[in-house]
């Protein structure tokens, strides 16, 4: 128990807006953490930069016409042959690291977001059906999920890519397959809890169709944990893809993501030309970290939901 030191501790705050869409309440809660706000800003900043990469960067590092090997392995800050300053240095082919990172981010994020999104849709659909229909379908699906989750995602992705070969679509496919199980399990759990609640019974009573109940009543109430898991998975997918590319099984060299950049520059680390690996590495780190901090805060804010 605390005794207030003085009564004047309590200023009468202006009545805040608790009416209105739950979303607004959520946003104001979320922004109360300074760390999370900064991380979110960084995250959205990265997204924007990645989206506008072709417009921002000084060169397209994969257009062979724009690079010259004469500018190879220049340290950060040095000027190149034609007088352009390479702020983050160049790699062995003469590619501007900054541009390469921007393009690499673009690809990494694109893959992360799209595979995360597809895994979400696929996993949610399966989890929802398993929860709603129950019985043998539920048992079957959940055993497959358990099986899948007992293997490390990296292993599954490696095996799939070994079979399928390289290519951006195959990478996305592999990532989706290694990720959908988390969604399915989470959705099933939440759906089972929500299914028992009386508003679902009421919907049954009102003779609404199964499809309607599943999508209009059950699904929206299973969303909160999904959003969190979705965001976590995007970060995971990005890291996973980077790992695959680093190992050389992910994207082809023509579409290098951050992982490939790091891998390329690995051999140059020992000779002191750290920038070819380290800067993409930092970019990857900052991206994944900001997404993770964002989702942590989101989880905090969504979990003790003020129902009453």
């Amino acid at each position, binding site marked *: 128990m605390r005794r207030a030191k003085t009564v004047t501790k309590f200023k009468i705050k202006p009545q805040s807006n608790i009416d209105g869409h739950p979303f607004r309440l959520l946003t104001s809660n979320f922004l109360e953490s300074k760390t999370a706000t900064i991380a979110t800003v960084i995250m959205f900043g990265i997204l924007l930069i990645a989206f506008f990469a072709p417009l921002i960067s000084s060169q397209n590092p994969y257009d062979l016409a724009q690079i010259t090997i004469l500018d190879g392995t220049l340290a950060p800050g040095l000027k190149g042959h034609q007088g352009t300053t390479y702020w983050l240095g160049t790699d062995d082919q003469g590619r501007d690291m900054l541009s390469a990172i921007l393009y690499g981010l673009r690809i990494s994020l694109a893959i992360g977001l799209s595979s995360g999104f597809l895994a979400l849709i696929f996993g949610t659909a399966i989890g929802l059906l398993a929860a709603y229909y129950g019985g043998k379908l539920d048992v079957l699906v959940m055993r497959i999920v358990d099986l899948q989750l007992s293997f490390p995602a990296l292993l599954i992705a490696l095996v799939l890519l070994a079979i399928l070969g390289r290519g951006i679509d195959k990478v996305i496919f592999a990532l989706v397959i290694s990720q959908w199980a988390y969604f399915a399990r989470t959705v099933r759990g939440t759906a089972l809890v929500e299914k028992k609640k009386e508003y679902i*019974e009421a919907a*049954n009573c009102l*003779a*609404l169709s199964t499809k309607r109940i599943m999508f209009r009543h059950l699904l929206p109430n299973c969303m909160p944990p999904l959003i969190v898991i979705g965001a976590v998975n995007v970060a995971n997918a990005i890291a996973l893809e980077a790992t695959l590319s680093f190992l050389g099984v992910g994207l082809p060299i023509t579409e290098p993501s951050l992982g490939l950049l790091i891998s390329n520059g690995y051999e140059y680390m020992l000779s002191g030309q750290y920038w070819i690996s380290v800067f993409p590495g930092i970019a990857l780190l900052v991206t994944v970290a900001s997404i993770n901090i964002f989702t942590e805060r989101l989880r905090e804010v969504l979990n003790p939901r003020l129902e009453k």
Partner: protein
Amino acid sequence: MNGKVDKPMIELCNISKRFIKKLDIVAKMVSKLGFSISEEVVHALDNINLKVYKGEVVGIAGESGCGKSTLGRIVAGVLEPSEGKIFYNGHDLKSLDQNESKRVAIQIQMIFQDPFSSLNPRMKVREIIGEAPIVHGIIKSTELDQYLNNLMPICGLKPSYKNRYPHQFSGGQRQRIAIARSLAVNPEFIVCDEVVSALDVSIQAQILNMFMEHRRKFGFASLFISHDLSVIEHVSDRVIIMYLGRIVEEATTENLFKRPLHPYTQALFDEIPSFKKRHINFSPIKGEVPSPFLPPSGCHFHPRCSKKMEICRKEEPKTIIVDTDRLVKCHLF
């Protein structure tokens, strides 16, 4: 008020409901190996016969575990009975085709106990109330606003509440929204499952008044489930007392409260704290409420009955018609 027409609106014949806790794979294997593990069965309802006539309010009273909520859910179509038939205006519900089934389902509505979980937290009030009427073609979506403007004030809600979310309302208001949701489809029968139990006394009075007003206005019949006997006495025409899945007594409200016949009903009435009695020496019924997994043999109430006889332990009592509109399930009669 007893609007007895030829056919009862709702009739339940020999309805039983068992909840079985099935053995999972491990338990099945273990039992095959010779260990005796049996499925756990709860006999929630045991051979229930019930009639509700047009416009009647039948109150169902009893304590937790007596099966009244299960009964309500079976009537409302939310649960399927394990055995027995349900008739609606004389038609066996199982014999109806899909379209007719749906039409009947809309006619029988239910209002639940917990105002906090019976509304979809992510739907606006206008969607909660308006969804079913639009889906079932009772109104067109363009007519929704007008429809709500008429319906909501009848339920004590301001039409401006249309665009709000459930979490912005108090318990009593949410219950009003739930009531509006049921009334929106013009039902002929409403099952009320402890609808005022979670509300404060002053709000309870408002909601009960509203219920009685609606009943007068719209003429629906109702199954009113509650553990609060004074509430049941106030709103019902006829009352049914349940104990551990069986109906033990049935009578018009006046007769039942003037002269309860079954020992359980009598004990129940004795136990209600009355306002006038001060500094009571509480004297509870002896014994514990039996577990629904292991109901006592014969008459379920016999271990706690002050008037028990030898036969009560051995045989289930038959339902005896004591008078017009009076039934008792007891060996004393």
